[in-house]
């Protein structure tokens, strides 16, 4: 009974186990709910899911399993082309429009999208709602902001028949979406965890003395939890062009976590790290800091996080003079190697969706330079990156 439901949940990577499945059975046996689909949805969610970041996965799994039972056909209408086009035009910058032209124009892209939509429809006959969110959007591949062209969300208003789980209210809480203002708080908590390591007790000498005195001379040992912020962090942000929005977000994120670190320092670079970086983003060009100086000033116990899309011409990394802004005597790759050799723990956070990394030669090169320690700028990615930074 409902065994396939359980496996559908597992397939969608909802962390659920046999214990929870048996709980659900017990709940049904006790008739907590009875032949009410919505109530069953809430009940199974309460029992099977233990974290709000899993709610979205659960919703998707639920929809997949019950599409046969409920027969909700939500996608017999086509997405109006005009609407899509308008949305796109709103989102794209001039530069990006130029890029589309280079790729065969908007019409060509639209055609691809249409084909993708059809493909997906055939695979999930009947209950296909996940267009544009499940990775059909070819737009991300060419570097557009997937936030702007989220088809599933905006067309939803046409589907008045949508069920609770189809609304996917918890999409923003899901841990594999990009960082946004909603889940930035959760990310912050991850960072705090990063900063606070170890909770072992240590002897509280002052308290022990005073309480022993109060205790008429009998020894009364007091312990206090150990709290030390030992993490020293250097952050390098790629600024200029497409990265600015992401960078602002990251900067906010890390400055909010500022108090949790013993030492934190921000630096900026453009596209790739070369012989100089700067610290004041508004006054770039003035008071450049020599990268050597960073290598000398900060010990190898500092942890280094790069934030950037690493999307550029491969020559910008591998050739002298590759920088788009100035003449660099030595290629960026040499500078990257110097950093990774000096600092023991380095990671790279990349706002590009991971699925598109292999399309960009420059990301591949950077991955090699970082010894594969590149993570997507999502909650999961941040968690992974922090794990890598803390590895002994």
């Amino acid at each position: 009974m409902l065994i396939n439901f359980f496996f559908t949940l597992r397939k969608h990577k909802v962390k659920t186990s046999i214990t929870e499945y048996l709980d659900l059975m017990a709940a049904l046996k006790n008739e907590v709910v009875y032949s009410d689909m919505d109530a069953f949805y809430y009940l199974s969610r309460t029992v099977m899911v233990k974290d709000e970041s899993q709610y979205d996965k659960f919703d998707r799994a639920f929809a997949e399993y019950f599409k046969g039972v409920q027969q909700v056909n939500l996608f017999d209408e086509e997405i109006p082309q005009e609407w899509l086009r308008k949305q796109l035009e709103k989102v794209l910058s001039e530069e990006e429009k130029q890029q589309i032209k280079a790729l065969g124009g908007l019409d060509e892209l639209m055609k691809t999208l249409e084909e993708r939509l059809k493909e997906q429809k055939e695979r999930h006959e009947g209950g296909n709602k996940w267009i544009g969110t499940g990775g059909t959007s070819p737009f991300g591949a060419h570097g557009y902001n997937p936030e702007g062209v989220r088809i599933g969300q905006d067309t939803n208003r046409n589907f008045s028949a949508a069920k609770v789980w189809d609304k996917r209210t918890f999409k923003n809480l899901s841990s594999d979406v990009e960082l946004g203002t909603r889940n930035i708080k959760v990310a912050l908590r991850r960072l705090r965890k990063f900063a606070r390591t170890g909770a072992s007790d240590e002897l509280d000498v002052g308290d022990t003395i005073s309480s022993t005195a109060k205790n008429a001379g009998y020894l009364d040992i007091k312990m206090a939890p150990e709290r030390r912020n030992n993490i020293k962090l250097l952050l390098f942000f790629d600024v200029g062009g497409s990265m600015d929005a992401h960078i602002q977000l990251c900067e906010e994120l890390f400055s909010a976590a500022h108090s949790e670190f013993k030492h934190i320092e921000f630096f900026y670079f453009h596209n790739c790290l070369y012989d100089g970086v700067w610290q004041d983003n508004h006054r770039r060009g003035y008071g450049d800091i020599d990268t050597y100086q960073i290598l000398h000033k900060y010990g190898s116990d500092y942890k280094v996080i790069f934030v950037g899309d690493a999307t550029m011409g491969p020559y910008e990394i591998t050739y002298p003079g590759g920088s788009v802004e100035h003449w660099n005597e030595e290629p960026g790759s040499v500078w990257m190697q110097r950093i990774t050799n000096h600092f023991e723990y380095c990671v790279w956070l990349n706002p590009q969706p991971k699925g598109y990394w292999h399309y960009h030669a420059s990301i591949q090169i950077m991955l090699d330079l970082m010894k594969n320690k590149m993570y997507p700028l999502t909650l999961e990615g941040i968690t992974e990156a922090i794990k890598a930074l803390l590895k002994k």
Partner: protein
Amino acid sequence: MGFIGTENYIASKELQLAVNAAITLEKPLLIKGEPGTGKTMLAEELAGALNTNLLQWHIKSTTKAQQGLYEYDAVSRLRDSQLGDEKVKDIGNYIVKGKLWEAFTAEHRPVLLIDEIDKADIEFPNDLLLELDKMEFFVYETQQRIVAKQRPIVIITSNNEKELPDAFLRRCFFHYIQFPNDEEMRQIVQVHFPDLKKGLLDNALKSFFQLREVNGLKKKPSTSELIDWLKLLVADDIPPEAISDKDAKNALPPLYGALLKNEQDIHLFEKLMFMARRNAN
């Protein structure tokens, strides 16, 4: 008989179901949600609705799991032994019952609130696994086994400051209280202020939800802040027009201190309002 909210507490259908499932299957219910969405209130109101005792165990960063079971007060025993008190012979006199013990031995099935479990040490939930699962524990000092007469209704709240271990989560049911929408908010306000003027409520809710939509606020105002703010508005007899008056010299809504609790937030909001007005002109 199930929990359907009380006259002071509006529970959504999902929440009712989660609570009832937890009561029926005798599992602890873990509640998460934005601060100020009524997580702690739930336990209080549930105890009221079921007409039973509420035992509250508020967790601090220094709380140990053992303190919920019992504590052995060695210091007073030592003092008593110096004074030659007869009591000292029975170690049982120095065992101080914790909240879980109280809950296990209560006459009627009580509601036990473990508030803000995420404040404690990372190991805290792991130390309570067996106790919450089997609802029993062992007192080493007196060689006594404490078994629950009936399984208490356990409500656990968390603000997500630390992740809880999987093994602990397996033993709980989970519900995430979503922020109420406009309609639910009206019901909630209705419960707290039955005779609020409609104009005032409309305007207040409008500026409240607008305020929540401002990006970049450090702390978004939540239900409890709204209730406080309305209380002040009613007390000061602010006319409805004053709240939504866009041309007013003051950019901030009256008595904003109840809604925005952070200096940076107030500055940010002032700036945004200033820009909005400049664009409008």
